[in-house]
């Protein structure tokens, strides 16, 4: 299959015609971080850039050295300005943005009346589409100042990626719509002939709504619309203007996704929608993609070698004995369907009291036994003696222990205790433990090597899965340029972290 075209991020950021970059995609895929990283990179490559984020996470502010992001662009210190660029960042405050529109368009007395209107207050703080609408409004404002070479914006954490495109229109058409006009007609001087015609029917409708919503609220709405209509010149018009701005050639949409089935399905959906709306798509950013420096060693060969090593040191599962954790791991990675394994292996063990048997509610149990939360997941040593009539929480602990999955978690991941792994003693003469750089007791080179191989096998399987997922996407959208961003082991905390992401965004293929 023809590979997807590569997205040349630097060319996009450097092009003076690129004025707006919109990062969109479903939640949890790294949209905000991508937007911030692009902002840093563009600024350091010489463009006067502002990043507008909608995500209320303080972390982004912190990663750019700002303690607080507010509704005005703040300069980000520490960004290299040698190329002549600068970086500013701001976070959308939707209520403030709405207030500002009111204040800018109405005389003080009228503005105050609007701001104090209860309906306005809930609309500006809580309307389902207000955040999206105000994000677009703010984007329009930033663009109108002409101060910025480039505006990078991320989209709100919406129910679905599409809300972002729909909501401004929804709010616009709602506030500008037929029914609201009918509703508010009595508040206007004169009214229109059609309104008079509808008057009788309207009384019925208004009274029904009044019963549901309360007449006070209807009055608030009417007052609000009457007060704001002339001032706004129609919400619809404003929504249309922003919509056109998004379609303009200076705008580039980046769809951000993770290389997982669901995220890419959403991404594909969004790509289609952008095309439908004639929005200019620059490409797909595929975040958290795995790679390896040892592509030549296949998962199968790595697993086989690991097994050989484990057998050599006698660490493999012994027949008839309880499965060692390495066997568990083996199972977990032996197939891409680790979930199936886990599902079939998690059959209720014989000594499980089974459903319906008394079991302590863990929340209370954990608390009541005085041992505190630390006992919830117990050290492998103590948890391996299930007969021990311990405090209530141990009851649950046994259940956790008996689950293969939980066993995996318990014995391998939990708090920094040295591992009591059920392995055979290190054979005589085996290498390890005495090398100069060794600071850790209980280390066996053979087992370490086996562990590394298993890790590699898992990595290869993950890569394989990601590649297949990605190929499915490309098969559906062969023309969408893609940039793959390698996974970082941890989260981003500072400008250096954002720069590292920026490098990956520019280099990824």
């Amino acid at each position, binding site marked *: 299959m023809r590979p997807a075209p590569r997205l040349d991020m630097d060319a996009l950021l450097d092009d003076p015609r690129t004025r707006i970059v919109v990062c969109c995609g479903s939640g949890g895929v790294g949209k905000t971080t991508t937007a911030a990283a692009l902002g840093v990179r563009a600024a350091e490559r010489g463009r006067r850039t502002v990043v507008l984020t909608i995500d209320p996470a303080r972390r982004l502010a912190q990663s750019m050295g700002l303690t607080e992001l507010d509704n005005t662009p703040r300069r980000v210190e520490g960004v290299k300005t040698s190329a002549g660029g600068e970086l500013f960042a701001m976070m959308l405050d939707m209520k403030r943005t709405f207030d500002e529109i009111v204040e800018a368009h109405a005389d003080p007395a009228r503005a105050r009346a609007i701001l104090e209107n209860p309906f306005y207050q809930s609309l500006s703080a809580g309307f389902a589409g207000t955040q999206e609408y105000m994000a677009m409004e703010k984007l329009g404002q930033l663009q109108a100042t002409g101060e910025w070479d480039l505006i990078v914006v991320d989209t709100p954490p919406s129910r679905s990626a599409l809300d972002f495109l729909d909501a401004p229109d929804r709010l616009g058409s709602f506030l500008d719509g037929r029914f609201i006009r009918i509703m508010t007609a009595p508040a206007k001087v004169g009214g229109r002939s059609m309104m008079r015609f509808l008057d009788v029917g309207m009384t019925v409708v208004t009274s029904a709504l009044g019963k549901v919503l309360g007449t006070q609220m209807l009055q608030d709405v009417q007052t609000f619309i009457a007060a704001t209509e002339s001032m706004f010149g129609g919400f619809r018009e404003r929504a249309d203007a922003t919509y056109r701005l998004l379609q303009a050639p200076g705008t580039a949409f980046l769809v951000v996704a993770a290389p997982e089935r669901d995220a890419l399905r959403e991404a594909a959906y969004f790509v289609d929608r952008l095309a439908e709306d004639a929005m200019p798509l620059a490409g797909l950013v595929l975040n958290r993609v795995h790679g390896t420096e040892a592509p030549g060693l296949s998962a199968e060969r790595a697993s086989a070698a690991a097994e050989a090593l484990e057998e050599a040191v006698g660490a493999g599962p012994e027949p008839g004995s309880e499965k060692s954790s390495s066997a568990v791991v083996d199972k977990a990675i032996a197939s891409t369907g680790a979930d199936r394994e886990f599902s079939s292996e998690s059959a209720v063990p014989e000594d499980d009291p089974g459903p319906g048997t008394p079991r302590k509610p863990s929340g209370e149990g954990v608390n009541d036994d005085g041992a505190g939360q630390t006992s919830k997941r117990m050290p492998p040593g103590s948890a391996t003696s299930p007969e021990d009539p311990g405090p209530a929480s141990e009851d649950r602990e046994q259940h956790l222990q008996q689950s293969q999955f939980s066993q995996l978690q318990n014995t391998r991941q939990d708090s920094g205790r040295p591992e009591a792994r059920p392995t055979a003693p290190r054979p005589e003469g085996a290498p390890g433990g005495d090398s100069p750089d060794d600071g850790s007791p209980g280390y066996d080179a053979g087992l370490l090597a086996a562990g590394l191989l298993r*890790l590699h096998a898992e990595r290869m399987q993950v890569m394989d899965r990601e590649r297949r997922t990605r190929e499915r996407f490309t098969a559906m959208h062969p023309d969408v340029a893609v940039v793959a961003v390698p996974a970082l082991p941890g989260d981003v905390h500072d400008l250096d972290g954002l720069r590292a992401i920026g490098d990956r965004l520019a280099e990824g293929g």
Partner: protein
Amino acid sequence: MAPAAPQAAARDAAPADGTDWEGVRLHVVTGKGGTGKTTVAAALALALAEDGRRTLLVEVEGRQGLAQLFDTDPLPHEERKIAAAPGGGEVLALAIDVEQALLEYLEMFYRVGRAGKALRKLGAIDFATTIAPGLRDVLLTGRAIEAVKRKTGDVPVYDAVVMDAPPTGRITRFLNVNTELAGLARFGPIHNQAQSVMRQLKSPQTAVHLVTLLEEMPTQETVDGAAELTAAGLPVGGVFVNMVRPSLLDEAALEAAAGGHRADVATALDGLVGGGDAPSDELVDALLDQAREHAQRVVLEREQRSAVREMGRPWYELPLLADGVDTGGLYALATELRRQGVA
């Protein structure tokens, strides 16, 4: 390690022989976007339905995420069976349509009959559900609570109702907006409805569960979300740590990998991976690099796990399903939840 954090609002009078959520009838499942709250909600509904019980899974955001998850046609505004649970139980699902819910509501209180259709056509229903930010939410939560309370004779129709709720960032407003609405519509049935919904939501029969991942941002959002809910007087339930990946190196190996041991590893691999020869330097370096990355991740995950533990709530872990979640995976997750004492 983690100090014994005070247990926030432990439910009173939970039976000693019960499961973690004995007495809870409405389970609200929230979480940061991308954490898999729909999956967890579905697995929870399945777990709670085992052994002949009946649960209702409610979708409120019109995304049809449940239909996708269970691989069925889009769900209507109607309770219908979506899955069978082991031991003869069943899970029903309902995707609430707000306009439909308002019409039902009008019908119940005002017997609007065919006028309802006209109202809808005029845009009045759309208007009403859009205009009052809280009305929408009252209708959604109200519909779920109606299902909680519904009885045949003296027996509740559902043993439990599980709601796939809006994400953590919006959950408090979503659940608390009844207060907001109650402030707006100061009188009338909607006002009363809001009050009654609020009472039910704040009662011990409700638990708001949070879904998270072992990553910094979702965990932080979970901690913040729980604090917000508590401040609003809403009952925080359990923490569901989703998509937990197996750790493939044990403690000794992690430490050893950090220490290097290049030469030893190369010796151990001799003849195993290099086609009969010694492994190349590049290969050994690559393997060790991967191990170091892995070790870093494990440390990070450990920190997140401590943060979850310190919340002092019951918590559960669900494994990452490598190929995404399908119906089979859901049953496996439900089994895991039961094993960990959820149901």
